[in-house]
């Protein structure tokens, strides 16, 4: 969007070329930018300032505020390194699996008639479920799937064999399961506009030229959709990378995850005087997310070529 604005502005200036006066032009430009001022202030206060504060604290001693690299050193060793590894691995799995599953669901409702009840229900429900998380979500899973859970009871009733071991809920599998709950609907919501960008005319044209369904997806639909799909995966990655309360509530710190560790360092009642190690971990997370966002932007730019 950003690079479109000057071009539009230029054409507007040309169109109003008859109007004289450089000053009024500057005023008009200033007025145009005044519109983004609230947003600019919001970004500066809500995003830039905290980021700078985190970056500074990350390189200061928690007690003396002296400059140090020890926080960063600790952040990439021992349990904190394991935490980063686990967080990245979990987030990749929690992006790819719900990504594929969500794409299939979205495609199913995309092919349903536009405005049909099913479609409206799925989209609305996705909007609700995608925002459900935290401790309530963890409790939902515990109430359903723990030893005394409702679903565990049903599974026991229908089968004498041990098909579900409730202790699986409290490790990384449990986190994955809980994350699916909000990641799949999130994927449905964000991939649907891309699917809607696939114009029926393309498919008809391909079919007229004798393309099979496979060939259509291989040479037309797939390549058009791919940048959007990968972009959505990156959003899902960010979503599970930053998730915190659900994992904490389910596993009680037995799975090392960076977001949970930051919580323990900053808000915990046990580890004192290591706040800045938390900031160091936060800074590493920010760097990873920035990399993800840069890739996302590049992919979006590619995807935008077809979605205009």
């Amino acid at each position, binding site marked *: 969007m950003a690079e479109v604005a000057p071009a539009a502005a230029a054409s507007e200036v040309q169109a109003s070329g008859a109007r004289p006066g450089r000053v009024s032009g500057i005023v008009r430009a200033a007025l145009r930018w005044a519109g983004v001022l609230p947003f600019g202030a919001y970004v500066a206060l809500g995003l830039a300032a905290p980021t700078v504060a985190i970056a500074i604290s990350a390189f200061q001693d928690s007690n003396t505020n002296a400059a140090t690299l020890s926080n960063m050193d600790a952040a990439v060793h021992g*349990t904190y390194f394991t935490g980063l590894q686990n967080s990245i691995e979990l987030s990749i799995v929690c992006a790819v699996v719900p990504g594929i599953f969500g794409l299939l669901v979205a495609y199913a409702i995309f092919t349903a008639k536009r405005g049909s009840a099913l479609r409206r229900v799925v989209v609305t429900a996705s909007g609700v479920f995608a925002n459900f998380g935290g401790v309530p979500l963890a409790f939902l899973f*515990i109430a359903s799937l723990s030893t005394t859970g409702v679903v565990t009871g049903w599974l026991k009733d229908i089968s004498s064999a041990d098909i579900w071991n409730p202790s699986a809920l409290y490790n990384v599998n449990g986190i994955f399961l809980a994350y699916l709950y909000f990641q799949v609907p999130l994927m449905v919501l964000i991939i649907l506009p891309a699917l809607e960008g696939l114009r029926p005319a393309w498919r008809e044209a391909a079919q007229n030229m004798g393309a099979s369904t496979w060939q259509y997806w291989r040479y037309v639909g797939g390549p058009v959709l791919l940048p959007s799909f990968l972009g959505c995966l990156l959003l899902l990655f960010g979503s599970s990378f930053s998730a915190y309360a659900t994992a904490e509530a*389910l596993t*009680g710190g037995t799975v090392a995850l960076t977001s949970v560790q930051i919580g323990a360092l900053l808000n*915990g*009642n046990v580890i004192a005087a290591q*706040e800045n190690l938390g900031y160091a971990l936060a800074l590493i997370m920010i760097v990873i997310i920035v990399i993800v966002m840069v890739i996302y932007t590049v992919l979006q730019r590619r995807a935008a070529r077809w979605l205009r």
Partner: protein
Amino acid sequence: MRKSKAVAVVMAAASTAVFAAACGSSNSSGDGSSVDWSKVTTLTSSGPHSMSALVQAAESEGQLNVITLPSNWANYGTIMKDFTAKYHIHITDAIPEGSSGQELQAVEREKGQSRAPDVVDVGTPFAVEGAGKNLWAPYKVQTWNNIPAVAKDANGDYYGDYGGYVAIGYDPSKVKVPPTSFKSLTNPAYKNMIGLNNSPTTAGAAFAAVYAAALANGGSYGNITPGIQFFAHLKKIGNFVPTAIGGPSTVQNGTTPILVWWDYLLASEVKPVVPGFKIVIPSDSTFASYYDQAISATAPDPAAARLWEEYLFSTTGQNLWLQGFARPIELSTLVKNGTVDKAAYDALPPAPSGTLTFPTDAQNATAENVVTQDWAKDVG
């Protein structure tokens, strides 16, 4: 919500300004008391530093800022109400559900503001951290000598207030064999039954439970590793349910019918909602921990802060804690003097015999780091 909060802040600021003006005028009118209460470290029986002078000064401040005191925790709701009724001092309780870490952050960040905390109630590691940063004003309450030496800073920067023992609570309707000790928790009958309140890397109670388990399994204050190994073993045999939301609801719904927690929290939070709930202090480990009081060195209401401490460590304050199932630090003195609230005292499991001991600050810090580094690796 947001709006009403803003209004409250403005009103608080305005009222503080009025009080400040009132104080100023009363001082200049010359009643002889130009005491800087922020520098007073103990009371004298008479003169400008007497209890009555403190009460007068605190009442003219008229305001006390506390932080992270849940009204259902250790009877704080009643304690605050009673204090306000007695001294006509309004109490503002910032972030009632906050943590010790947040208390320290608030003291540091709000320095110089009228809403900054006057007093804190923090876990010992945080009291020590605050002392290292010179955040506390040393003060010794009148009953200073009744606080065991191991539970206070010799300089008076911080002092133990209330606490309890790591205990095992269980619901007898689901747990047929009563657990008596940490070692007994390895019983295969307890499969998928045993929980902690939270992660030991986050919650003081869960951390204490791991420490207590260490003492029962050949560890010591200097060596918490056997405690981690113990829970790793419980997890391996399927007895330990590592959810971080252990509490009344997980006991009620059967997720963790056995809960290792502070005795006073099992008594105050779980027992009222689980019929027949039993609490035992494990026979193979006695691990006590007390929270600490400290006065902020930059308290905006220095006299009210000192009066609050005097009140908490009075017989009334100590018994009020006891009525909230928390063991006040001067409990043994109350028992000896016969001033203890008998009914409240009998509601807690009997205290283990022997004198109180605690890990040193250095041992505690080492244990924190060991648990932080090894909990996920060994138990996960």
